[in-house]
């Protein structure tokens, strides 16, 4: 319902030392009409130019400190509120590659009343701010 709005293209930045970045980060919203507990966010799949990045490289921070996706599975007391951007951090030596690249995000959610997992996807062509 909100797929096209998930990735905030303007939020892309490198993380780690400026001269030797260790990864990149961007802001994203949850593609759902309500907030959801973090334990029900089953997947945050990130791909660069169609190339999936390893699950272990991804961390999530809604403002209370970064969690690995495995840690999120039992974060029963934390929520991703409706319409609120959280930070998605990706370990990638060298940071985000130079120039414009396609960044994609897939969110897979365990929604109680749906017979199947809810899947949201967004894909945007992004580059680091000069």
């Amino acid at each position, binding site marked *: 319902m909100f797929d096209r709005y998930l990735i905030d293209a303007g939020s892309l930045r490198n993380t780690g030392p400026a001269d030797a970045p260790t990864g990149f980060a961007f802001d994203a919203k949850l593609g759902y009409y*309500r907030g*959801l507990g973090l334990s029900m966010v089953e997947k945050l799949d990130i791909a660069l130019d169609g190339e999936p990045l390893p699950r272990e490289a991804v961390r999530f921070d809604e403002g209370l400190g970064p969690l690995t996706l495995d840690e999120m599975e039992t974060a029963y007391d934390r929520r991703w509120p409706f319409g*609120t951007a959280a930070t998605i951090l990706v370990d990638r030596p060298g940071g985000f590659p130079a120039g414009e690249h396609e960044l994609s995000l897939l969110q897979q959610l365990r929604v109680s*009343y749906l017979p199947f997992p809810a899947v949201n996807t967004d894909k945007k062509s992004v580059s680091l701010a000069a």
Partner: protein
Amino acid sequence: MSGQIKRGVSLYSFQEEMFLGRMNVEGVVGFAASIGAAGIEILPEQNMPTFPHITDAQIGEWQDMLSHHGAHFTCYDMFLDTKLRKGELLSDEEQVESIKRDLTLCNRLGIRNMRVLIFVRPDILEKCVPYAEQMDVHMGVEVHAPWHLEHAWILRTVDVADRLGTQHLGILPDMGIFMKNYPPEFRARFERQGARPEVAQFIVDQHQQKIMCEYTIYEVAVKMGGNKAEVAMAETLRHAPYANPKRIKDYAPYFRHIQAKFYGMTEDCVDPAIAYDEVIPELVKCGWEGTLSSEYEGNRWIQDVEEVDSREQVRRQHVMFENLIAKAQSELEIV
């Protein structure tokens, strides 16, 4: 005079603008009050960022804001995260506790209607009835397409309510169950995604004739060699029932609130899809006194081609409500 049916809005209707940060809840409440739709349906898990931790001070701020605009709460939309943990469902006791948590917050907010998700088991709700009575909150199981008023799953809740003789368990219809015509917004979206106009027309015609959806899906997917958009369009028919509005009077004692679902209003304030022109006279005839609460869900069908304007859509729906209510009342007086 507009009679005993009250008008309101669900904050769900403004999800596009609120998601994008273009409106906040106060903006919605002020708008709703300005069109005479002062009853506010809230989704705490959408509209209260600190949910489930809500302080008395926060509740006071909400009440002050509502009264400032001459608005009031009508309904609380609950959720039940049975899939909180990977690989196992919440136990029955945990489900009851979660519902009690919502009943408590509903009561603290001064709301007397709670929308219960349709998948919640009737036997779980039965266990919650004594607490709902104590909190004085009516638990209304959402009758949402593809279910309908007389679906056996819904009748199980009605049976429990009858057996217990309680006023605190019943149903809460979503008007999507009265989809008389296929929504033009759906069709246009599928055509933009590659559905051929003649196949789209075939699907619309099949729906118009109320042909059981599986025939149409097979025709489109197999016989017509339908593409992805065409098959997806045919599959929407699984969720497009047209329940009989004449049955409303039999179930009116079981509901106090209606989610007035719609996908788009024409410029002259007509809903081309949902049969409000048949539903509202039935509600008026049986003297129903609850709230028609706008639930606009058209945003997801048009956001790829146009700016969503939920306010204008909701405004048009309320013009239609006023007209249909007044007409039904005048016809009642003549008889």
